[in-house]
């Protein structure tokens, strides 16, 4: 699943429309939209670090992301030197604490990259907010959620599963930012965003983990096999490990177990015989 988090509805609009997302009517205290077919869950967090952290924590606790999922935090931001552009963030700085976070930069993309500072207040040059800009290099991005999303997200996602895409809306003049302008900016970059989303989704599917549990029928056979060997807990664990290895090695262990039954070597009379039989079974493998 792709977990998308935006601070505002106007940042979410392009996804809702493009992916035909349906509103979740189950009474969550945040706005949420989903499409089960495309595997997208979009949540509007509200503005600010606390709102973002609370919502990301809540959503991830409910849906429990897996290793094949990823998180996208997308929205507008300010830039210290330019009025326009889309950036993939390679470094997130929490302004209040100075702590830094680094999402993995593993995937090909066509965006510029940059550092983003996340503050409690909007970046506003007319306030001459020296605290926010202190020490930051020229060309820094400013927002109010990214570092918080990362910190909460890191309890559920690895750094290779979190992506922070930010679209510049202003140079620290918040009067320039409006709902309409935000929607226009999102619209402007939608193709590259959707391309990247598709690409990342493919990577997760191809590179992520696959289910290697035995099929139900095989699982039942293994359980019966262990019961008929009178396996102790330690023997059972050891057997599971052997079976896992054999499955990975593509050895036809099922036939070997069935052969033991056909030769009337199973079920065993007692634990002692079971242990002997288990040792024989292991010896046959290597």
């Amino acid at each position, binding site marked *: 699943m792709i977990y998308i988090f935006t601070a505002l509805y106007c940042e979410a609009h392009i996804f809702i429309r493009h992916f035909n997302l349906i509103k979740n009517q189950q009474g969550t205290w945040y706005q949420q939209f989903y499409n089960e077919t495309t595997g997208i869950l979009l949540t509007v967090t509200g503005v600010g670090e606390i709102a973002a952290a609370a919502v990301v924590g809540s959503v991830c606790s409910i849906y429990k992301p897996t290793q094949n999922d990823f998180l996208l935090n997308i929205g507008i931001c300010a830039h210290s030197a330019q009025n326009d552009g889309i950036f993939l963030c390679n470094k997130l700085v929490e302004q209040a604490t100075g702590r830094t976070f680094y999402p993995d*930069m*593993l995937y*090909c*993309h066509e965006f510029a990259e940059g550092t983003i500072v996340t503050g409690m207040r909007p970046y506003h040059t007319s306030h001459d907010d020296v605290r926010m800009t202190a020490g930051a290099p020229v060309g820094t991005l400013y927002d109010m959620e990214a570092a918080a999303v990362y910190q909460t997200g890191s309890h559920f996602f690895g*750094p*290779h599963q979190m992506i922070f895409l930010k679209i510049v809306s202003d140079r620290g003049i918040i009067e320039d930012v409006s709902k309409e302008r935000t929607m226009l900016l999102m619209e402007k970059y939608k193709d590259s965003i959707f391309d990247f989303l598709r690409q990342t989704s493919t990577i997760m599917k191809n590179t992520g983990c696959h289910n*290697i549990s035995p099929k139900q029928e095989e699982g039942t056979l293994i359980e019966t096999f262990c019961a008929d060997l009178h396996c102790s807990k330690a023997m059972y664990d050891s057997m599971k490990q052997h079976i896992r290895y054999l499955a990975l*090695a593509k050895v036809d262990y099922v036939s070997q177990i069935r052969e033991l039954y056909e030769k009337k070597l199973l079920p065993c009379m007692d634990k002692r015989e079971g242990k002997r039989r288990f040792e024989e079974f292991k010896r046959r493998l290597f």
Partner: protein
Amino acid sequence: MKNLKEDYFSPFFSHIYVEKAVLEHARTRRILAEFPSATVIEIDHYKDVFCRSRQSIRFQRRAQNLILAAKQGTLLYEGAPVCQSFGNRYFYYVSCAMNCIYDCAYCYLKGMYPSANIVVFVNLEDIFAQVRQVLEQHPLYLCVSYDTDLPALERIIGYVREWCDFAANHENLKIEIRTKCASKTFVRNTRPVSAVIYAFTLSPQAVIDAFEHHTPSLTQRLSCAAELIRAGCPVRLCFDPMIYVPDWQQHYEAMLEEVFRAIPMEKIVDVSVGTFRISQDYLKNMRRQEPESLVIWFPYQKEGGYCHYPDALMEEMECFLSGRLEEKISREKIFRWNV
């Protein structure tokens, strides 16, 4: 979109993280010059990137990035019990780089480190200073390519040459450089130093194909080893770790035949023989990272915090190889880790 069709992952070392403290270090500048199109990201401490939680070695392996940092604290470590000391009393190793460009499925680095990114410590001079201090007390057998493969990184960092220069000027110091590298350029540029032993890890081609991803073939490694012997460099052959595969005996037999054809065995320093073994904790980490890896999920025997092949199999594999090697080389030159 870049490489959309061919590969969704970024090229290796597309991003280089550099500690602020070493931004102006000469080695940093030299390494960065090798990657003019890389994105450089300033960091406070290498652990901010290297030690993040929930990293995926599997993903990072597809697009390894580089971290340049300064090594602090302990710079010299005593050799671990599972490592072969080759009869040297003062056996130490240093970690001037962490992680490797090769992707061996069984490599303990995948269990030891939380990340697949490569860290290069640029303050080699501090490591040299500590080695000098120890040399004042006693001789030293030092492995400098344990947690990485220095020759494979030589084009980028040039540390083999620096270690050779250092060893040439210090008595009582013997250095081992463990590698699977077979770079012709590396061989061409290597000058023989009697105190620097090049230790080639050799495996049957079937094992290389199955588990030692992106490494040179057996033939290439042997050719490189033979070339170094011809140039007058001390060379060690490491049949360690031996990896179990079905029909292992045939594969190891075929490998030995190729070794004996390519290498004048009377000229090698010594050989090591050892089946795969690993710390239980490292194996646990590796199993979490690689749920589908055959070599990692072998049902190993646990003993004293380490995992190894079942005793009978381990003994059979090591005895087989040692026995065959004894036909070509004296027994004193064969080191087995568990004897």
